[in-house]
C-alpha cells in the first residue's frame, strides 16, 4: 500500500464569476521513502494539490488515502489530528513564532499532540540537533539567519515523526548556497527514511528529487523518475572552487 493514494481527485472553486477547476481528476500514488518534487507554473494546480494532500483543504471530488486513512471522511478535528500526527509542513516564509525561542517553536506540534513538557523539551532538542542547530535552541527567530530559521522550521516539521514532510517552496526565500544546504538536509533526511514532497516552480530545486511530477491546468503533465543531483557534493564543490574573480582573470 502506497503512503499517498490519490484517485480522480478534483478541486473546484466556486466564485461569483463562475467556477474554476483547479485540479481535474488527478490520480497518483507516492510510496513511503520517496523524495518527490511537484512542479508547475502558478495556476497549474500544484498548490491546490499540496493543500489537498496536506489535509488543509477538502477535495470536491475523488478519493484520497493518506497512510490508509480515507481523508475525505474526516471531520475538521480529524483533519487537524492527521496534520498533527502524520504530516510536517515547511513553508517558504518559515512561519516561526517570533516571540518564543527555537526550542519552543519546535515544541509547538507536540503541544497540540498533548505531550507533557519534559518529553516535549527532550524531543525538540533532539530534532534541533538533527538539523544541526543544537547550540541555537534558545535563540529567537530574529537572532537566526534565514537558513537557520528554515532549519528550525524543518525541525518543527520532524518533531512528531510524521509519515510525510511537505515543503512548499522551501528555498524560495533563501540565497542559492543556503538553498543547497536546505536541499542537502532534505536529502539526508530522505536517506534516513523520511518521505519528502517538495512543491516548487524552480527546476534547480526539482533536480535534487528522485521523482518529478509536473502539473499544468489542473492535470498531470508528466511524471518522471530521475537520478537526483547530490546537493552535498555540490556544496563541497562550491567550497573548493576558486573565487569567480580569479576565473575571470
Amino acid at each position, binding site marked *: 500500500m502506497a503512503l499517498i493514494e490519490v484517485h480522480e481527485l478534483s478541486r473546484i472553486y466556486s466564485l461569483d464569476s463562475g467556477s474554476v477547476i483547479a485540479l481535474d481528476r488527478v490520480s497518483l500514488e507516492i510510496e513511503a521513502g520517496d523524495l518527490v518534487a511537484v512542479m508547475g507554473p502558478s495556476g497549474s494546480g500544484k498548490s491546490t494539490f499540496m493543500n489537498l494532500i496536506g489535509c488543509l483543504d477538502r477535495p470536491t471530488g475523488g478519493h484520497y488515502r493518506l497512510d490508509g486513512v480515507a481523508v475525505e471522511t474526516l471531520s*475538521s478535528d480529524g483533519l487537524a489530528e492527521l496534520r498533527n500526527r502524520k504530516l510536517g509542513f515547511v513553508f517558504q516564509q518559515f512561519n516561526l513564532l517570533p516571540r518564543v525561542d527555537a526550542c519552543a517553536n519546535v515544541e509547538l506540534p507536540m503541544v497540540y499532540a498533548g505531550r507533557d513538557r519534559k518529553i516535549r523539551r527532550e524531543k525538540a532538542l533532539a530534532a534541533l540537533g538533527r538539523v544541526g542547530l543544537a547550540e541555537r535552541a534558545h535563540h529567537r527567530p530574529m537572532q537566526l539567519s534565514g537558513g537557520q530559521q528554515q532549519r528550525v522550521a524543518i525541525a518543527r516539521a520532524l518533531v512528531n515523526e510524521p509519515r510525510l514532510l511537505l515543503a512548499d517552496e522551501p528555498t524560495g526565500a533563501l540565497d542559492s548556497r543556503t538553498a543547497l544546504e536546505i536541499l542537502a538536509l532534505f536529502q539526508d533526511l530522505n536517506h534516513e527514511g523520511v518521505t519528502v514532497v517538495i512543491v516548487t516552480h524552480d527546476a534547480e530545486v526539482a533536480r535534487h528529487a528522485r521523482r518529478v511530477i509536473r502539473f499544468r491546468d489542473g492535470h498531470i503533465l508528466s511524471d518522471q523518475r530521475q537520478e537526483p543531483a547530490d546537493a552535498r557534493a555540490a556544496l563541497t564543490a562550491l567550497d573548493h572552487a576558486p573565487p569567480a574573480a580569479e576565473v575571470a582573470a
Partner: protein
Amino acid sequence: MSLWEAIRSALSAIGANALRSALTMLGIIIGVAAVIAMVAIGSGARERVTGQIKSLGANLAIIQSGNVTQGGVRLGAGASSTLTDEDARAVLAEVENVTAAAPVIVTRAQAVYAGTNWSTQITATDLDFFTAREWGVAEGRLFEPEELRRGEIVAVIGQTVAKNLFGEQDPLDQMFRIRNVPFKVIGVMAPKGQSALGQDQDDVIFVPLDTGRRRIIGRNYARDRSVQTIMVKFASEDAIAPGIADTTALLRQRHRLPEDQDDDFIVRNLTEIANTATAAATTLSWLLAAVAAVSLLVGGIGIMNIMLVSVTERTREIGLRLAVGARQRDVLAQFLIEATTLATIGGAVGIALGVGAALTIARIANWPSVISIETILIAVGVSGMIGVFFGFYPARQAARLDPIEALRRE
C-alpha cells in the same frame, strides 16, 4: 496544552505588546475601579442617611402649630402658637398607639460660664422628648418629674455645649447662666451626631418646659401654655398613618375648629420623610453603579477591539498553528484565554484602585466606608466574564480562519 501553559502563553502575547495591552486594560481598570468606588460611595451615603434617620428616632410625627388665617391671609406654619402642652397630654392619653407626646419650645440663647460663652439652641420640653428621640444621658441624669412640675432651674446639656462651655472640666453640678438666670447642669447627653439636614444635634441645652417658658422666653405660665411643636412617637410604623388621622381629629375638636376652616396646625410624618431620603440615597447609589457599569462596558468593547486587531495581525500565526495540528477549539481557547487574562489583570488593578479611591473619598467626606467582599468578588467575576464575552467574537473569528488563507496572508 494545560491551562497554566495557556495562561503563560497569553501573558507572553500580552507582554509582547505591553503598551497596547496596558492601554486596553486601562478601560477595564477604570471600569472596575469606578464600579467599586461608586458602589462604596453609594452605600456609604445610604448608610449615613440611615444612620441619621436612626438618630432621629423611629416612628415619629411632629405637630407644628400655626397656619392660621387672618382676614383671608394664610400665615403658614409656626405663625401662631395654637398648640399647648395640654394638647400634648391629650394626644398621649386619647390617641391609640401613641407611646410619647412631647411639647417642645425651641429658642436660641447665649450660655455663659466663667470667662466663656456659647450661643446654642435651648430646647424646653419634658421627659417624653427623650423617650421619643430614644436618647439618654452619658453622665448625670435627666429631669425628675418634680423638677419639671416646679420648673426648677436645671439643665441637661449636649456634648458640643459641654465641650465649648466647660472644655476639659466636668460639667456636672456646675452653674452657668442663660439670660442671667443661673442653671445647674444635672446631666450630659450621649453624643448623637449630625441630623439628616447636617445640623449638629449635640449643640443643645435641654431645660424643663416651664423653666424655659418663664425664665428664658419670659412668658407668663398662667396665661400662656402654648408650645411650638409636639413630638409624637407611635408604637409601630403601621400605627403612624391612622394615628395621625386620629390626632388631627382630636386637635380640631380641642381647638373648636368649624368644619369649613383649615387646620391651625400641621402634622408631619418624619418616618415618611426618612423613607424618602433613604429611597433617594438608594436611587443615587444605583445611578452611580449604572454609570460605572457603562464605563466597564466601554472597557470591554476596548478589549474586543484590540483582540480583533490582534487576530488580524496574527493571522499567519493562526494559520501555522492550524497547520501543525491545532483544532478550532484550541485556537478559540487561546484567544479567549488571552482576552480573559487581559480583562482579569485589568480587573485586579481596578480593584486595588477602586478600594483605594473608596477609602480616600470615605475619609475626606467622613463617610462610613462600605467595601464589601461581595462587590470585589462580583467585580472580579464581571471582569473575567467581560473577557470571555468580548473575547468570544474575536476568538471565533480566529478559530474559523481557513488555514490556507491564513498562511497566505501577509
